[in-house]
């Protein structure tokens, strides 16, 4: 690898103004902020295999409206520590640690994808801590596979199981594959199909680490997409009707490999009274990156300007 450590710029992108490390029951969680430290906070939870600095364009747009945007890298992601174990409960506890660090006043919370599902559970656990909830393409539903018989689904699960256990057997000394900035951007582009290459190149330099043999994403190599378990996507949907704070759900209708394939009819029966629901034609799963100004305007219309 001959790639120099280079700084890549992207129009409108601004790195966080502050970064600090929190102790989440023994795991170092990296918390970041954009904006005036005395401005009212707005909390954002990123999605799986992302990191807080994927907000480097979106967050400054909310800051421009007077908010202080607070986010964090999930355990095993970005600048947070690689943990010994990973689970939904652990992510929830880490999120509660970040929430607690901000102070007791209620605040708006946004979440994208996995972060959106996390916010639903946080909001049910701590309804007194949130003034508004915004969910960006983070509403899972039962995947529809009408052309696959149940027997075949069982077989698929069996294959997933074996593959996961094989992965676990190999994972102890696993390292992420190094590459040039362009190579890492191209790899990520296979999962972020609607995001432009220049943005992905920029992400490498803020979400990657430059070692002697090249760049590597700051994502724990023991983590693996997909998997299996007892969790049912509809369990997240069942958290919606009881939400007590104003709620905005936004779905991108362009299907993507990283998206959850949720359609409006999956969501509508579960929306709480008075909920706002937006479905965006021609926009994909990473809506706040693909159309940052549109989504920022939507959020500001919903949560308003800070008092």
């Amino acid at each position, binding site marked *: 690898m001959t790639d120099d450590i280079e700084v890549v710029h992207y129009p409108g992108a601004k790195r966080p103004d502050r970064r600090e490390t929190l102790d989440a029951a023994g795991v170092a969680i990296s918390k970041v902020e954009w904006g005036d430290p005395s401005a009212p906070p707005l909390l954002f939870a990123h999605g799986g295999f992302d990191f807080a600095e994927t907000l480097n364009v979106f967050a400054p747009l909310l800051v421009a409206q007077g908010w202080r945007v607070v986010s964090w890298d999930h355990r095993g992601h970005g600048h947070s520590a690689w943990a010994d174990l990973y689970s939904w409960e652990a992510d929830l506890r880490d999120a509660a640690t970040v929430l607690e660090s901000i102070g007791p006043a209620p605040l708006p919370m946004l979440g994208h994808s996995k972060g959106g599902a996390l916010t639903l559970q946080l909001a049910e656990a701590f309804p007194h801590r949130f003034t508004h909830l915004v969910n960006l393409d983070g509403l899972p539903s039962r995947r529809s596979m009408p052309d696959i018989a149940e027997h075949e689904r069982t077989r698929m699960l069996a294959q997933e*199981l074996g593959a996961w256990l094989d992965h676990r057997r190999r994972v102890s000394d696993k390292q992420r594959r190094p590459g040039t900035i362009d190579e890492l951007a191209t790899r990520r582009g296979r999962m972020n199909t609607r995001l432009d290459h220049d943005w992905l190149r920029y992400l490498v330099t803020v979400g990657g680490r430059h070692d002697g043999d090249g760049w590597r994403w700051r994502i724990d190599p023991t983590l693996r997409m997909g998997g299996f378990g007892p969790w049912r996507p509809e369990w997240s949907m069942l958290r919606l009707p009881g939400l007590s704070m104003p709620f905005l759900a936004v779905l991108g209708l362009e299907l993507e490999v990283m998206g959850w394939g949720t359609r409006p009819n999956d969501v509508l029966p579960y929306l709480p009274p008075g909920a706002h629901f937006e479905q965006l034609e021609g926009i994909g799963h990473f809506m706040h990156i693909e159309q940052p100004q549109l989504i920022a305007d939507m959020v500001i219309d919903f949560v308003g300007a800070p008092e």
Partner: protein
Amino acid sequence: MSGTDSEPTAWVRHGRSDLALQCLREGEGRALLLLHGLGERAPTVAPDWVAPWPGPVWGLDFTGHGRSTLPRGGGYTAEMLLGDADAALEHLGEATVVGRGLGGYVGLLLAGARAARVHGVIICDGPGIAGGGIQPGSPFVVFPRFGHGETPDPFAMVELARDVRPPDYALNYVRFAFESAPVPDPVVVAAVVRPEWLSAVAVEPGVIECERSEALASFID
């Protein structure tokens, strides 16, 4: 693997955990793998009830239990413990599995996930047999403060007591075991306590209900 060639403790690795796999008794033939309950640890000597078993007898300490790694910051799931049990199985090659409580549930997962190499699982009473019910309850966030930096890990005690176990999920593993197990009746329920997941397993056609000693005898070649 024959127990006669083994060290008393084999250390196996899963993820970032070093796991104590204790040889409790040597023997010739297929291994018997004991999986402990929630908050327990593997016995240090072979229990009396394994006396009829001709092969070696091994006990595994799950992550956060016994002499195995005490991880930082929790994050336990039954599926992660399945990976622990699979690491033990990789060391042993093949085994019959007896699990207490949580270990019985994990043993069932292993019997389904590695069906060709698990010669039967016996699910017994023990701590953690119920898990967290069949679907999530009201969410809450716990920062356990008890414990003294030793196993059993308080995070394991809290998180694995809330681990959700839908009956249809457990039944998938029963069916996988039926499809590929090298023995005709690979799943035995010896537990008296029957949380919903285990009630569903016990009434599945082909699952045997009997006492532990009878079940153990049925798996002797």
